[in-house]
């Protein structure tokens, strides 16, 4: 039985992309987003007026791997109309090499 070739992650670091979608469909529109970059010491730039991807699937097509999606949970009885944190959170990752000092200063 063929096995998938092992993928080495040596020298790679994780970049995370949090997307919050309009509903549970990964084709749904992105309504909020965050980035966390393990390859850089810089703080994330914020206040972009537009999301980096229009949908969750658009990010996947650009090489982001989905590592977690929010489960579907009905609210407790009597709390159907109480709202809290953003729903439909999708966490995606990329593994990328750490830029060399030369690449950073270029």
């Amino acid at each position, binding site marked *: 039985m063929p096995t998938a070739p092992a993928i080495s992650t040596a020298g790679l670091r994780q970049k995370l992309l949090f997307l919050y979608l309009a*509903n549970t469909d990964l084709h749904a529109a992105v309504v909020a987003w965050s980035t966390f970059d393990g390859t850089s010491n810089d703080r994330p730039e914020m206040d972009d007026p537009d999301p980096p991807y229009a949908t969750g699937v658009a990010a996947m097509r650009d090489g982001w791997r989905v590592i977690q999606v929010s489960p579907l949970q009905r609210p407790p009885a009597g709390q159907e109309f109480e709202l809290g944190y953003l729903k*439909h959170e999708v966490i995606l990752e990329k593994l990328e090499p750490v830029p060399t000092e030369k690449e950073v200063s270029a």
Partner: protein
Amino acid sequence: MNKPVAEAPSASARSAADLPTQVPGFDRRHLLTTAQMAAFVSEGFLRFDALVPAELCNALMAELNDGLYRPYETEGADWEAIWPEPLAAGRIFRMPEVHGIIESLVGPHPRYDHHCPHLRTGPDNGHQGLHQDAEFDPRPSGFDIQVSFFPHDIGPEHGGTMFVPGSHFRRVHESEIGRYQNVLGQVQTVCKAGTLVFWHADLWHAGRANRTATERYMFKLRLNPMVRQLKLWNTDDLHDPAVIAGVKKVLKRGQPWFGQQNRIETMNRVRLWRELTGDPTFDLNMYWTRTGNAPQAGYRPVR
């Protein structure tokens, strides 16, 4: 230089209900209109650009730089006793135009909760994480307000307070929403000196990085209502059909980040509007009327 502010009597020492509802000579034209109240219920804030004259802005800046406004002083005091003459903050927040907005939202004689001069010395690149102030707000009705006063011009690079319109019905725990870096529709404050933003105390917000080489101030004040928040604004137009049609339109106005929860957000607005107007029949799209429909009357068919 820190000058002590006169000790103010506690608001709990007297009942707001026993006090006159409005100060003598108060002009009701300074109260909010029904349309403005609907916008507050919908978006969670109202902004008034350059409302405070330059002379008062400059006076407050001078006092801030002299260190006169220690944050959180005299918590729980009577609002009227805070910052007596000639302190500029008292003169600003007791301007008839400002007084009318405050009274429309939290009623007469609110309780001073706290204030804090937010100073950000630039340049820096550290955005504050998104948060809701204080603690979980479990109140089934009623709300505090916060007032953000900008005593100098705030440009795009000053990192003025960012608000997420319509987020005030979300029950979250303070800075646990710091994971959310960008929300579609968020609004960063860029304004002229003298601008005031009056906001529901549960509105999501954050200070942004000040990328200039100058200091950036935002003077924040929190007030608690001491009366039931029922028809406190100028309700003379509350039964005008054209005004109510406008109210319905505003309360249905969605935000781009609502997504699937858009209808529930509308229902929460309706719930607050019912409380503020005392009208339990007000509804939009029959959302509450439908979900509350559980007929008990029996039916005997005629044979």
